């Protein structure tokens, strides 16, 4: 009979790099509070989470980032990620806010924020991100691949994490990861068969990051799956937390 871990909890430290915290106006999420998020983290052994605010992604980054800091409220297991719109924001004040709050990760969602990911829009912001050694997170559903490729290749020292990769993106996203060595990949939705083997072959273990896309997905399934690939404990640890710590330059 099938062998399963019926009460799974991670055997290695976990730092989830794709968690949303807060309400949205279009539906009632199963979890929209800090307490609920921590309960879900504890259930499967997630120690820390990189958190963004959905209002900042969908509407106004300034208010969204303020809401983010309010909801995190000093909880040390939550690491804040600021959202920005380089087409409309004031870089000076955004930069100050990033510094004050010790932000290490920036999120862009160009389609939702109505701007193309092209250098004449995002160039100044990209230069700033590189200079400040920040990491940019961007979902694969949020840009035109050709525009993205042409822009990112101009910033070879940037650290960029592709989020929400799904099997439907395989034909172009895997070649993109191969073509740009400064790209990392977050695996919350990447559950195509042989998913981890494909990524290990194309980008190597050091560029793969565990993320859940919580609360739009549970934290457990991908974490459970990662524990069932027969990879070494050091590789598992790197994917689940070490790689993210390294690119953010923090030690949890």
């Amino acid at each position, binding site marked *: 009979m099938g062998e399963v871990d*019926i009460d799974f909890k991670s055997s290695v430290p976990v730092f989830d790099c794709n968690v949303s915290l807060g309400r949205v106006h279009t539906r009632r999420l199963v979890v929209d509070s800090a307490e609920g998020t921590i309960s*879900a983290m504890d*259930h499967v052994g997630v120690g820390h989470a990189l958190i963004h605010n959905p209002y900042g992604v969908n509407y106004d980054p300034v208010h969204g980032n303020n809401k983010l800091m309010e909801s995190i409220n000093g909880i040390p297991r939550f690491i804040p990620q600021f959202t920005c719109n380089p087409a409309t924001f004031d870089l000076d004040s955004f930069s100050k806010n990033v510094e004050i709050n010790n932000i290490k990760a920036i999120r862009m969602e160009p389609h939702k924020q109505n701007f193309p990911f092209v250098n004449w829009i995002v160039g100044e912001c990209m230069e700033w991100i590189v200079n400040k050694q920040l990491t940019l997170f961007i979902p694969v559903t949020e840009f035109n691949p050709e525009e993205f490729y042409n822009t990112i290749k101009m910033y070879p020292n940037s650290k960029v994490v592709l989020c929400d990769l799904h099997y439907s993106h395989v034909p172009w996203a895997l070649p993109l990861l191969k073509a740009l060595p400064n790209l990392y990949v977050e695996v919350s939705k990447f559950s*195509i068969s042989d998913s981890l083997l494909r990524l290990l072959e194309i980008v190597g273990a050091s560029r793969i990051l565990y993320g859940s896309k919580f609360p739009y997905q549970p934290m457990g399934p*991908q974490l459970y799956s990662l524990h069932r690939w027969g990879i070494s404990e050091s590789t598992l640890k790197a994917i689940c937390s070490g790689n993210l710590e390294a690119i953010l330059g923090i030690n949890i």
Partner: protein
Amino acid sequence: MNIINTLVIDFHSHVGRMGNYNIIDDMDWYVKNLDAAGVDKSFVSYIFDGKASNCNDIVYEFVQKNPKRFGGFAHVTPHYMDEAIPELDRAFNKLEMKALKIYPPFYPRPVNHESWYPIFEWCNANKIPVKSHTQYGPGEFKNDDSGRPILFLDLAQKFPNINWILAHSGNMEEGRIESVQAAKECSNIYLETCSSYGDHGTIEYFVDELGDDRILYGSDLPLIDARFGVGRIVTAKISEDSKRKILGLNALKVLNINESEISI
């Protein structure tokens, strides 16, 4: 860690090459994937050839290579109704298929439109389970409304000898709500769990609303790795008994088979 042995039956997987996703249907590879996930048996279908008999031949040939680990679900289409009924007879009486898989978005009328009825009448007369792709909600898949879950309420009442399995359980939140509503009203409706869209708490929602007797584990292999789907069940906040039922015990009842026919 609490490793246990329990029956795991995958109610939703596919065979056939999918070059668009760089997937090949190699038997050894499937078995390795099932072993890693702890799956005893996987029921496969193929739905992408316009000639349904070709689909069923591909499934049959695949299953015959390893019938202990794989079983077949047949496919027919109302586009060619003159072929559908003879093909159902061949699929279930010669090719040993265990259920019918339908895909309403391939057809321009809702799944409860009478043009589907000859297929369902045959299944009803022969007590054949029918598994259908279901999806409903916002986004780019508007054709999927032809198989929205609430339509199966009508079908489950009209064709009571069929066990109706809602693949993906409607996928999005709107679809999941309809799936639960339909299943609550008709005891011959079952929910199957594979999805690219399942929110946190989806499995718990199904169990809270419906109980644990009519929920079935599915993988969507090879589009979704079998480990991921098992992970959705075992990491849900539900009882161990519920996990065991969803992972495999419920499927025995739907397919009317014994555990001895499955266990490896």
